[in-house]
């Protein structure tokens, strides 16, 4: 039997290698004290210095803390700062007293000063450095921290509120050389933080494990949180099997999930929207009538009704913050005949071919691309679809080699100044997020004037004027503002759904788990 046993040995050896897998060290936790939470993508690292990435920020929200955060109604709420005062030249933060890091070390304004200096220092490789450039920081005493922005900017708070500028521990990172700190192993394994939970481990492609922080400023009732980066389809299935306690779901699955026993679904308007950017530096799209025609050609109401199962709204502005929007805006209702005549008026050449690029993989968005292609085709604009990887799309933004790009997201609800960076002449990609290369100096003047004021009423007046111009010029082909849909199991209590999924765990310190 030598030869046969040889063959068997090969197989068994393979099995043995598999079973001695070192990643399988069991860490048993009673399932009653733990909850499972969905992450829509794989986190990379957990560093406020890195360019912002949704899943990284979601995890950091739980393990780190900020001066202030945004709640479920998009208003700023205190976190480490108990209160703050906004003056024209400075913002003063008054920190909570007696806070401790998760390793027991006391927290002071020196940690905040250390973090902001690091974030503003281009040497550190901080992606926030550009935004914080020119600002000065001071810590006059242990519980006070002052920021002096380079120019008067009321919108500054939204640049540093959660999910940006998480405060880092000086006593852990303070000795690392600034030019190498971005690559520090701490950001792969950030075990010291101020958040309600502490980092335990990250098993790539499986889960991030967090445990309740014993030094948090109030008792945390959930012992363990497991964040699982899986596909939306798998997460939905796991809501049904009880393997998932909190997940975002797609409109397609709304009825299925609502029918699961013990699962509740909540919908909140998201702070961004799905849009197409046309490359406006390309003369073919320069005439606003072309852009208006494109909006008229697409039945956006039907998109919302069918693809989103009615969970969303047609978008007609680059602004989302409610008080920045005037009462009425041109709605660009579905009207193929008008679309055709506008295109003809503007002299659109029907032989011209236009490419629509997007990152595939989301069912609703993929369907929207197909619908847009067909609708524009019916109006006389020949569109070719092109699926691209993220890197390719971003490169085409920078080199201006795209015609139309379909994408979504953004967080514009808390303050209209965040929308301004998508239409500002000085914010062309990659300097800012003005992907369509739209430029209207009079619009820039309006938003700059508004941001130099502290009075909400006066700001609103100027922003509404800007929004009217934006609505008429159509710098983006706005499609829709989808609702963020959250599903929670009956075990998880105290979750307050927010439309912004990146800050969706904003009140995680109040969550509890039922028996």
């Amino acid at each position, binding site marked *: 039997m030598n030869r046969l046993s040889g063959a068997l040995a090969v197989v068994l050896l393979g099995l043995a290698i598999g079973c001695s897998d070192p990643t399988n060290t069991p860490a048993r936790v009673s399932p009653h004290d733990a909850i499972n939470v969905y992450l829509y993508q794989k986190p990379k690292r957990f560093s406020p210095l890195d360019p912002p990435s949704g899943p990284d920020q979601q995890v950091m929200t739980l393990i780190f803390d900020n001066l202030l955060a945004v709640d479920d109604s998009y208003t700023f709420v205190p976190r480490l700062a108990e209160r703050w005062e906004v003056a024209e030249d400075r913002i003063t933060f008054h920190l909570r007293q007696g806070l401790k890091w998760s390793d027991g070390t006391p927290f002071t304004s020196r940690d905040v000063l250390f973090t902001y200096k690091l974030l503003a220092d281009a040497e550190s490789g901080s992606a926030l450095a550009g935004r914080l450039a020119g600002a000065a920081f001071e810590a006059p005493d242990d519980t006070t921290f002052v920021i002096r922005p380079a120019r008067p900017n009321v919108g500054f708070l939204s640049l540093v509120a959660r999910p940006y500028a998480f405060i880092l521990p000086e006593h852990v990172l303070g000795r690392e050389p600034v030019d190498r700190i971005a690559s520090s192993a701490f950001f792969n394994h950030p075990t010291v933080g101020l958040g309600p939970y502490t980092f335990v481990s990250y098993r790539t492609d499986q889960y991030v494990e967090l445990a309740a922080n014993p030094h948090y400023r109030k008792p945390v009732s959930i012992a363990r949180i497991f964040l699982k980066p899986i596909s939306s*389809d798998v997460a939905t299935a796991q809501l*049904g099997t009880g393997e998932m306690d909190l997940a975002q779901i797609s409109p*397609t699955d709304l009825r*299925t999930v609502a029918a699961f026993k013990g699962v509740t679904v909540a919908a909140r308007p998201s702070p961004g929207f799905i849009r197409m950017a046309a490359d406006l530096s390309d003369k073919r799209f320069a005439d606003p009538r072309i852009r208006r025609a494109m909006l008229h050609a697409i039945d956006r109401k039907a998109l919302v009704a069918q693809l989103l199962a009615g969970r969303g709204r047609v978008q007609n502005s680059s602004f989302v913050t409610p008080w920045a929007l005037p009462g009425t805006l041109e709605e660009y209702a579905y009207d193929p005949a008008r679309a055709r005549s506008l295109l003809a008026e503007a002299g659109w050449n029907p032989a011209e071919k236009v490419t629509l690029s997007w990152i595939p993989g989301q069912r609703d968005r993929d*369907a929207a691309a197909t*619908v847009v*292609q*067909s609708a524009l085709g019916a109006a006389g604009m020949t569109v070719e679809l092109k699926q691209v*990887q993220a890197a390719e799309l971003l490169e085409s933004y920078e080199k201006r080699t795209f015609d139309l790009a379909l994408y979504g997201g953004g967080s514009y609800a808390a303050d209209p100044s965040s929308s301004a960076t998508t239409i500002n002449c000085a914010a062309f990609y990659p300097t800012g997020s003005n992907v369509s290369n739209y430029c209207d100096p009079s619009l820039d003047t309006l938003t700059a004037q508004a941001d130099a004021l502290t009075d909400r009423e006066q700001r609103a007046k100027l922003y509404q004027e800007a929004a009217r111009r934006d609505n008429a010029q159509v710098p983006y082909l706005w499609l829709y503002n989808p609702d963020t849909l959250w599903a929670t199991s009956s075990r998880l209590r105290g979750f307050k759904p927010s439309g912004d999924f990146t800050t969706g765990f904003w009140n995680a310190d109040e969550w509890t788990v039922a028996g």
Partner: protein
Amino acid sequence: MSTALSPAALAARRFLGNRLALAGAVFLTAAGVLALAAPLVAGHDPNAVDLAAFREPPSAAHLLGTDSTGRDVFARLLHAGRISLLVGLLSSLAALAVGTLLGALAGVFGGAVDAVVMRAADVVLSFPSLVVIVVLAGVLGPSTAMLVLVFAAGNWPTACRVVRGLTLSLREQEYVQAARAFGAGRAALIGRHVLPAVLSQVAVVGTLLVAQMILLEAVLSFLGLGVQPPRASWGTMLTDAQNLTLLQTMPWLWLPPGLAIALTVLAVNFVGDGLRDAVDPKGTRR
């Protein structure tokens, strides 16, 4: 058994006696005809979007219902079949042509030619096909032509190895040595003796390759690396099965393409099996 029958006629008789192979051939013919005649049979434009008819169940107007942008599933199934079958056939033919030629060259010339060809075959076989495909999809732009090219480039070694082996054994046979003794050139040797002799085996390899290629296309399209929208292949249509809601409540979206792939590949395999038995009744080849 009558001695008057030629080997080819014998093989044909054996093939026709194999009921499964025959059934497979009939199914494939039908599928091929349907795919070719898709525009005539379908009754709908496969790319006609209609948001008013969103995910509708099968009806008289839409035999297999409509998909997530209101397109007719039956029409898409037939047109997707064209692409799936085309990719399977073309890439296999291309792989066979390259593999047979290189295999014959390696076998006839031997020596350095043989060494280079077989090393190249090793290299190709060890190249992770997925990496190659993603990269080429990026460089050439994902397209049907790209799929055919990459599949052919990654699969010629199978035929190459078979043909080389056969050629080597052929070289030792008397009639071939006689031909060489009479001064037959190597090209003539390949054309007149090697190719006819290996044709039947190559046909078997080719058939089985078609089945593999159809499955490979389905996997790639499923991973989003294959056929580009708005066109569809059976693999892209199957992506809908991943979603719980669609899987549970809308079988018309994923069952037809799923069945189409399974039955087609099964039929191809039956035919390939039948061919193998017909060509090599003793089953000496593994």
